[in-house]
């Protein structure tokens, strides 16, 4: 019991500062974490079946979840469309090849270019992007939580959808899971709904192209050269999920240090202890900031 007090509470035996928050011990923990980080990176490359990130994102699941949300909103289900899936796949490959993460490529290529190139002559079209997610429900939940993406998911302008799920390198991440969702419809008003029309989101276009005279232009379509799987998926199971492992350890460690610094603040304040040291209250605030950041990491992002 005395040993635990020595570790966690300021008292005479630890010079009025919990032993675990002595400078050398904090430094030791930090070094240990940095060393473990390099070990995990190496292990993920060499024994990926044992230690790595478990991923299960599949087009079929994304379609089912999207249609479930549409059904809840009283909308007709979307149909999986091969051309839109080709377009999504081409867009994903383009992002990997040109190293960008955006609706518009650095060369100005738009999502609509990919859709047209895949042979889908749309009246309405839209695109949702996601990266860094490890499960299909997480992707769909994140889209539904974002007003612009939700508007696409629940738009009654669309009848068709296509997905591409790919793993690769994007800016800032050497190995991320990328999801591209392309929506479309070939005609006006084919989708029926109990809901009023949804406002078209930023990532959506209604580009019925017109000539200066106002006549509709027939869009030239160029089929993409290679066949790609329509129902793409990234599924990977590892013995130990490194994402879960590192986040759990980190949150546990952070909570421990927050607790110790918190107790230090309370005890030294109560005892009016005079020490020549930094303010534990400052460290507490900093570590709470880090804790909030740590909780947010690995949740994936949508665009």
């Amino acid at each position, binding site marked *: 019991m005395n040993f635990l007090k020595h570790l966690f509470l300021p008292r005479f035996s630890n010079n009025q500062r919990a032993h675990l928050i002595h400078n050398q011990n904090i430094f030791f923990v930090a070094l240990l974490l940095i060393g473990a980080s390099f070990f995990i990176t190496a292990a993920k490359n060499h024994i990926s079946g044992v230690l790595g*990130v478990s991923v299960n994102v599949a087009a079929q699941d994304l379609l089912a979840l999207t249609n479930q949300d549409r059904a809840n909103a009283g909308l007709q289900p979307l149909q999986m469309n091969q051309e839109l899936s080709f377009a999504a796949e081409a867009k994903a490959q383009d992002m990997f090849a040109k190293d960008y993460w955006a609706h518009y490529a650095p060369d100005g290529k738009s999502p609509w270019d990919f859709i047209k190139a895949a042979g889908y002559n749309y009246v309405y079209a839209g695109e949702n992007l996601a990266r860094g997610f490890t499960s299909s429900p997480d992707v769909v939940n994140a889209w539904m939580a974002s007003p612009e993406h939700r508007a696409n998911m629940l738009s009654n302008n669309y009848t068709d959808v296509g997905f591409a799920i790919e793993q690769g390198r994007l800016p800032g991440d050497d190995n991320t899971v990328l999801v591209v969702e392309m929506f479309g419809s070939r005609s006006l008003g084919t989708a029926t709904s109990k809901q009023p029309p949804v406002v078209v989101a930023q990532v959506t276009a209604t580009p019925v192209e017109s000539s200066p005279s106002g006549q509709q232009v027939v869009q030239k379509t160029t089929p993409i050269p290679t066949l790609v799987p329509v129902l793409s998926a990234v599924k990977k199971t590892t013995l130990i999920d490194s994402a879960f492992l590192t986040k759990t350890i980190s949150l546990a460690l*952070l909570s421990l240090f927050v607790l110790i610094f918190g107790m230090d603040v309370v005890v030294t304040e109560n005892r009016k202890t005079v020490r020549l040291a930094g303010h534990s209250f400052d460290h507490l605030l900093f570590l*709470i900031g880090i804790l909030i950041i740590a909780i947010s*990491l690995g*949740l994936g992002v949508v665009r």
Partner: protein
Amino acid sequence: MKKHLGYYTSFLLIVAASIFLVFQNNGDKNVVLLFVSLFAVSYILWGVLHHLVHHSVTLRIVIEYIVVALLGVAIIFFILNGGI
């Protein structure tokens, strides 16, 4: 406590700005690490400045702020390396 109000308000702004910037760039590991490192450096400078103005500064106190900042960066680095 009143004389510290300005310091703590400024520090809370640094914390809020750092969290906001990380949230905005959550998918980009390098940018996240950059903002967390900037947060840590700001914390060290703020802590040392605070002691310089209102208390006394010793090497040990400076080291204390550095190791706590290092711990914060190390934890984020650890999570980023374990993730996808």
